[in-house]
């Protein structure tokens, strides 16, 4: 334990005296400060040096707090003198570093009352940098080590540290930005508190108006969103149910391809379906043109608006609801249905009185999931919305539009959050922890009853056209990139691919001259960095949730799952607002993108980890502990090797999500760090469909390869095991 304290002490002091205290212009990996004679320069100096050269004498206490553990170092480990010193110096250090960061900003004091107390200062400080990061980690882990010394979590340093780390990062990267957006909704342009105008704007006509129902004017965006989400969720739940029934309860030949199709939306950037619909049903679309030339039906703009968005969303979300429903349909114990049939119920009666009621929680879960997805969807409304505005797009235009009205965006974000959080709460309340329970297999042998005919044919009549249509759409996407100009000139060309991905021979070797290379390489590298980190923190949280018991575990779980219910647009806006100013200045860097992906995708990693870890017998961990390994070694040598498949799939998921995600990303990209999806959306907005489609299909193919590769990796592992048996 002393070793741990000492190591963190060294880390902290190194951060304090050697590394730049403030964030550097060119990012974390700029090492210019090492080479130039700039160690004394205000921009590059460490905290210690800052104290001398730029009169930032409020940094002194940080150094003292860092050294505090030395005073108690000789005390016995379980003495109050030892652990209290660690706990209090750590906590005080954390508070002080953030406190000074929030108090002194770019233009001196951030708060009027501080200036009144201490007098004005003419020193400015920027966001915290790498030195501060180490100092903060030191304080955090001294604090948790102190708690462990006090006997928290049976004195397990690693577990207490891990809990502290997860809480700290969730607070900083989920709660702090979201709280920030809530607060910014309450202030006017000058930063003054404005409660009354908040309520005026919250209930404004352009949000809640119902003019369209009365037949006069347009509806508010909240009403639009609500109508869209309820319809999209209802339809995709019904379709998902139909698919699940066909896949699980019929002998239909194409069951396997249907399951495979359900994978597609995972690897499809969210607006691609919308794009394909434009190619089919837009004014220049194939179907539209065909109807025009054959039946003389005038091309119209019917697709642009509620019908188009709804169409695209149902197509995109049905596979998601299918995945929920298939789990539920498979999970129903066959003996229930067999019991019903032995009690002389017909197939139809069995289906209506037993099967369907047992599926109710699944239906609710699927509905709420689709509801949240639809509310949060940004790509399809942007591409297909036309004059039909929903909350997520309106937020976007409030930020990037002409007037750049942050507080309007914040208000809309609150409305959106209200919807998704209510759905999230409802879902949790409805399902409780049931979503984790798996079929044990005990006493559950038997055969599921087959579907009654009317249900079977209804389901098939939905599934077959849908499947055919999906195939058409993806063919469209794959071939759309090879066509000169869609709808006008269907001659074969490679020009879109050349424009996007050309490599030319320059003076100094190969030059990646294609327009897409910049965003492409950024996307891939950001995805490669964030995917393992997402998997790591997801599994760590899952480990803590499944294997450890601690006070406040429920809130802990809730906190880590919360970002699931926060729409990407809200995350995007809140990150922009929160991380644009000191003490955490990250906007425009690659770091903010990585962080955004980690915390957006963490809930899925956590769920996957929980599911996998619940299947590992807990006595394996205990055996390792009893054999003298600590919990970190146990995690490393016993749990992780056994969780390899879960780790692989978690990394794949994180990777794929980082590539396909758009709603949060579009706020966070910058000239240096542009992402593929935001680049494509930009092209779509200019009507530049060819390159957009070409780029999208490249992404889809890359992700498909990635997934197949992972499948092969995991698959061989399983083979291996069977061989041993």
């Amino acid at each position, binding site marked *: 334990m002393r070793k741990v304290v000492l190591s963190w002490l060294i880390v902290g002091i190194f951060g304090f005296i050697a590394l730049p205290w403030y964030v550097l212009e060119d990012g974390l990996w700029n090492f210019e400060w090492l080479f130039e004679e700039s160690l004394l320069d205000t921009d590059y100096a460490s905290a210690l040096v800052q104290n001398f050269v730029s009169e930032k004498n409020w940094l002194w206490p940080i150094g003292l707090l860092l050294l505090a553990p030395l005073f108690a170092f000789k005390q016995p480990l379980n003495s109050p003198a030892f652990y209290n010193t660690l706990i209090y110096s750590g906590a005080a250090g954390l508070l002080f570093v953030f406190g000074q960061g929030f108090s002194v900003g770019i233009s001196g004091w951030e708060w009027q009352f501080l200036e009144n107390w201490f007098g004005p200062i003419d020193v400015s400080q920027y966001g915290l940098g790498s030195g501060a990061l180490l100092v903060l980690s030191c304080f955090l882990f001294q604090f948790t080590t102190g708690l462990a010394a006090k*006997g928290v979590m*049976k*004195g*397990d340093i690693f577990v207490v540290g891990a809990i502290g780390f997860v809480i700290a990062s969730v607070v900083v990267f989920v709660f702090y930005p979201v709280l920030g957006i809530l607060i910014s909704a309450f202030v006017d342009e000058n930063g003054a508190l404005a409660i009354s105008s908040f309520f005026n704007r919250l209930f404004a006509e352009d949000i809640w108006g119902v003019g369209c129902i009365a037949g006069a004017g347009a509806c508010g965006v909240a009403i639009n969103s609500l109508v869209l989400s309820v319809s999209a969720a209802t339809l995709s739940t019904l379709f998902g149910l139909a698919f699940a029934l066909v896949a699980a309860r019929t002998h239909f030949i194409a069951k396997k391809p249907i399951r495979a199709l359900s994978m597609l939306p995972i690897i499809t950037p969210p607006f691609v379906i919308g794009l394909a619909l434009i190619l089919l049903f837009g004014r220049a679309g194939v179907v539209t043109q065909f109807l025009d030339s054959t039946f003389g039906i005038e091309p119209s703009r019917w697709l642009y608006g509620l019908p188009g968005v709804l169409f695209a969303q149902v197509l995109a979300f049905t596979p998601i609801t299918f995945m929920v429903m298939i789990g539920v349909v498979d999970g129903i114990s066959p003996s229930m249905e067999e019991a019903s049939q032995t009690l002389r119920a017909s197939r139809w009666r069995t289906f209506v009185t037993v099967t369907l009621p047992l599926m109710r929680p699944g239906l609710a879960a699927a509905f709420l999931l689709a509801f949240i997805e639809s509310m949060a969807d940004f790509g399809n409304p942007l591409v297909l919305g036309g004059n039909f505005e929903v909350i997520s797009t309106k937020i976007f235009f409030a930020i990037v539009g002409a007037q750049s009205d942050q507080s309007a965006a914040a208000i809309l974000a609150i409305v959106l959050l209200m919807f998704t959080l209510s759905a999230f709460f409802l879902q949790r309340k409805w399902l409780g922890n049931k979503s984790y329970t798996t079929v044990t297999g005990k006493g559950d042998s038997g055969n599921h009853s087959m579907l009654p005919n009317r249900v079977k044919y209804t389901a098939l009549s939905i599934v077959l056209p849908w499947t055919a249509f999906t195939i058409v759409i993806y063919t469209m996407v794959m071939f759309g990139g090879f066509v000169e100009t869609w709808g006008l000139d269907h001659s074969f060309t490679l020009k879109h691919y050349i424009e996007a991905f050309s490599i030319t021979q320059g003076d100094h070797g190969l030059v990646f001259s294609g327009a897409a290379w910049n965003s492409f390489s950024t996307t891939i590298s950001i995805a490669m960095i964030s995917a393992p980190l997402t998997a790591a923190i997801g599994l760590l949280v899952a480990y803590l949730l499944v294997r450890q018991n601690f006070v406040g575990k429920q809130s802990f779980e809730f906190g880590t799952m919360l970002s699931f219910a926060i729409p990407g647009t809200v995350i995007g806006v809140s990150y922009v607002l929160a991380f644009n100013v000191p003490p955490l200045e990250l906007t425009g860097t690659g770091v903010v993108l990585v962080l955004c992906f980690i915390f957006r995708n963490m809930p899925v990693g956590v769920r996957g980890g929980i599911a996998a870890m619940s299947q590992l*017998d807990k*006595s*394996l961990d*205990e*055996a*390792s*502990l*009893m*054999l*003298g*390994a*600590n919990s970190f*070694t146990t995690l490393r*040598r*016993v749990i992780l*090797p*056994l969780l390899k498949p879960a780790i692989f799939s978690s990394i794949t998921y994180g990777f794929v999500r980082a590539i396909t995600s758009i709603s949060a990303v579009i706020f966070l990209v910058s000239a240096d760090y542009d992402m593929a999806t935001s680049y494509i959306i930009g092209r779509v907005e200019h009507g530049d469909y060819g390159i957009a489609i070409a780029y999208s299909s490249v992404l889809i193919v890359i992700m498909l390869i990635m997934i197949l590769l992972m499948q092969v990796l995991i698959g061989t592992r399983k083979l291996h095991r069977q061989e*041993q*048996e």
Partner: protein
Amino acid sequence: MSIKSTAASVEFRNVGKSYGQVKAIKDVSFTVEAGTLVTLLGPSGCGKTTTLRMIAGLEQASSGQIFIGDQDVTNASVMMRDVSMVFQSYALFPHMSVLENVAYGLREQGLKKDQAYSQAEEGMAMVGLTGFGDRMPNQLSGGQQQRVAVARALVLKPKVLLFDEPLSNLDAKLRRKVREEIRELQQSLGLTSVYVTHDQEEAMAVSDKIIVMNESVISQHGTPHQLYEQPQNTFIADFIGDATLVKGTYISHDEKQVKVQLDNIEVDLAHRNISNLQGSLDIAIRPNSIYVTIEPSTHSSGQTIKGTVTKSVYLGGHVEYELETALGSLFAVDHQAQQAIASGSSVYVNIASQGIALVG
């Protein structure tokens, strides 16, 4: 390999454990002498496994103190305790070979690889698994896996070796053999062992002492003989001896014996310093001390009452009867019977007085 020297005693002083409102253990105190095997016995949910896990350090006591040797380990973490455990599921790491499994703890203690492996091989030899080092756990039979688990625990030279229902995953025949092996190993190495089971026969077979737990408290603590012969309460009489409990009426007593009226017969029972001797008393009658005959018995000891067979089960080696008598319903086992007496028969029930015990 010397393991004996490290064996230490285990002591619980008024230990309690609660999960929120639920009390899993209430005020439990006992001592396990160094070098002995003590069994925690009881029905499921009685708190025996929780008690074992508190010795291991996998659960923390809510109150009271736990000592291993003369060291207070109440708040010590698992790693600080020098205790090993054989798990019910064996908990062999499926991704490591047998040798790696056995060497795991040695490696964690900081031993070099070759040193750890040679000690691990000694440990495997001790349980008769020489040459199995390269196998994976799933290539072994249940009994072999169990021995790997024992070897893995033994090589660390623990102060205390814990067994959590180690036989429950083995088939009935193997169980008898393995429990004898465990007992032999424990005695030859002089290990302090704490053993959890719900099977009273298994407990009788392996233990120096048995701690019977029921509803979160210790019901009785003693040698197998004491528990069988001198049940202190009706639960023990029922759980250990399968005895039928009846009410008898107190007649008189002297220093050695107590005279009790059972229906129409009088019996003299060992006194055993029971206080509160008056009125109605709890009497335990063991099934194998009851003889059932159709003709009036000529059995030497004991006395006869009349009854009817209400259920008769022929089990090859013995016959089990349920009898309706003036004392109430009695459970009897006849080990000598050639043929079962049919259900419904009127019979004479002879009770040997050494099979009757006062409870208390």
